[in-house]
């Protein structure tokens, strides 16, 4: 009996499965978002009641609805926008500089393994070393200005990205590099078409950390001493006992960081589409 092996044509799955009328079920992301919204709302109401009834008097918390009101009120003041602009400038500049620095350093450490090995203990521990504590030294050297904050925040942002970039590049599957060689890719093609995309998951994770570090670093340093910026303003308002406005500023910082987190999640989705 002759069994001729027919070349098999793969069939897209949608032709194989019968269309099913499924009940609509919200995706994990939607459910998570809804659950968080519910939690936040419950918290909000509890604090509202607690403060209104005086049960939370000794915590010094203001009425949540008042905080929302005064936050909206802030948006009309020029002073707020000046603080906000300053902080955004610092964060934006340190994200940009930190990413460029970290990404470049990661690639150099990968290309020159000896250098990478020498700097590894420093990178690994600086990433964990309280770099913010250098801030008093920075202001002695550079002055109390955006410059000293941007310099330190950039370094803080650069370190996790450099480490991740190097780790990602070292983890490229050898077969991908072999492929590049058999196709006679030049150095530029190998770097941009193979190495960086292959390391992208690690690089993007490093970028997320870089953004968090830039934000946390900038605000923490403003909080320590500065002459302008959201972090500085919160401290100033605390010291002048303006509790209501202080909470409005704190709320703004919380919103700003949530917006950055969400933005980075979107960036990750776009850059890593199609992968598992």
């Amino acid at each position, binding site marked *: 009996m002759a069994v001729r092996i027919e070349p098999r044509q793969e069939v897209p799955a949608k032709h194989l499965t019968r269309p099913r009328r499924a009940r609509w079920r919200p995706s*994990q992301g939607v*459910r*998570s*978002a809804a*659950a*968080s919204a519910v*939690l*936040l709302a419950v918290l909000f109401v509890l604090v509202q009641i607690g403060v209104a009834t005086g049960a939370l008097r*000794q*915590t*010094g*918390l203001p009425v949540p609805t008042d905080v929302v009101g005064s936050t909206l009120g802030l948006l009309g003041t020029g002073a707020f926008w000046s603080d906000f602009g300053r902080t955004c400038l610092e964060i934006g500049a340190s994200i940009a500089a930190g990413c460029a620095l970290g990404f470049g350093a990661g690639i150099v450490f990968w290309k020159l393994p*000896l250098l990478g*090995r*020498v*700097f*590894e*203990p*420093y990178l*690994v*521990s600086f*990433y*964990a*070393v*309280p770099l*913010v*504590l*250098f801030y*008093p*030294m920075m*202001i*002695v*050297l550079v002055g109390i200005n955006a410059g000293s904050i941007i310099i330190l925040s950039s370094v803080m942002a650069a370190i996790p990205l450099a480490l991740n970039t190097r780790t990602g590049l070292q983890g490229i599957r050898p077969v991908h590099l072999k492929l590049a060689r058999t196709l006679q890719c030049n150095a530029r093609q190998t770097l941009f078409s193979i190495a960086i995309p292959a390391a992208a998951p690690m690089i993007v994770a490093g970028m997320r950390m870089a*953004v*968090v570090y830039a*934000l*946390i670093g*900038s*605000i*923490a340093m403003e*909080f*320590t001493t500065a002459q302008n910026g*959201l*972090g500085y303003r*919160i*401290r100033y308002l*605390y010291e002048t006992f303006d509790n209501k406005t*202080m*909470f409005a*500023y*704190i709320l703004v*910082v*919380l919103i700003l*960081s*949530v917006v*950055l*987190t969400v933005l980075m999640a979107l960036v990750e989705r776009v850059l890593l589409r199609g992968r598992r």
Partner: protein
Amino acid sequence: MTRLTKLRESQFAGAAVVALVASAIWQVSSGLSFVIPSPAATAEAFVQNFADPRYLSDIGETAQAVAQAFVIGTVLGGAIGLLLGLSAAARTWLEPLLIAFNGVPKIVLYPVLLPIFSLGGSKIVMGVLFALFPVLINVAVGVRTIPPVYWKLGRTVQASKWQLFVHILLPAIRLPLLTGVRLAISLAVVGVVLSEFFATRFGLGRVVLQAYSHGEYAQMVSTILLLILVAFTMSVLLWRLERRVR
């Protein structure tokens, strides 16, 4: 391999060279600007500080707060991380909020903590908030990426919950857990010292800020270096342990 290449390839030697070059640059630049204390003056301040009982009690104060923050933060972070790793419901409810909170500059909450936890407690709470997240995230991700076959193995040998935890879960997540703990130590230092920058009567953070405002830069730099040295040493030791465990 010859001894020379071995030395050249040793990470420690390379790192030492980098440290030497950095101190040389420091020495030269201290000669150029009066605000930069020389390495010698800094070292002198460093040594003298240890003869000062007030300074020693500041060290004790900070060390105690850091230790408490570290222990509480690691335990709490580990517990929440486990919960998040093991329970889908916990993930649905808590994950987005925790991820968002991880990105928040927690120091701005310090004024909120002060009336609730008072001066001594607030810096510990701040240290906990800082130390919590690396442990939490690493444990949660570590637990979720345990290969399912390990759980199946545990079930087929009818391991108890406790046995599963000790013999499967802990060994499987030991590496991310160690990484989290390593980061938690220095983040606890950051949280406590930043709080001490803000308002406190004792502690090394206060020493730094006071030295800064009095223009005693040698004192300031030597204290910052002490903090960084301790965090650096702990972190390198844990990192080496991590690489051995691998």
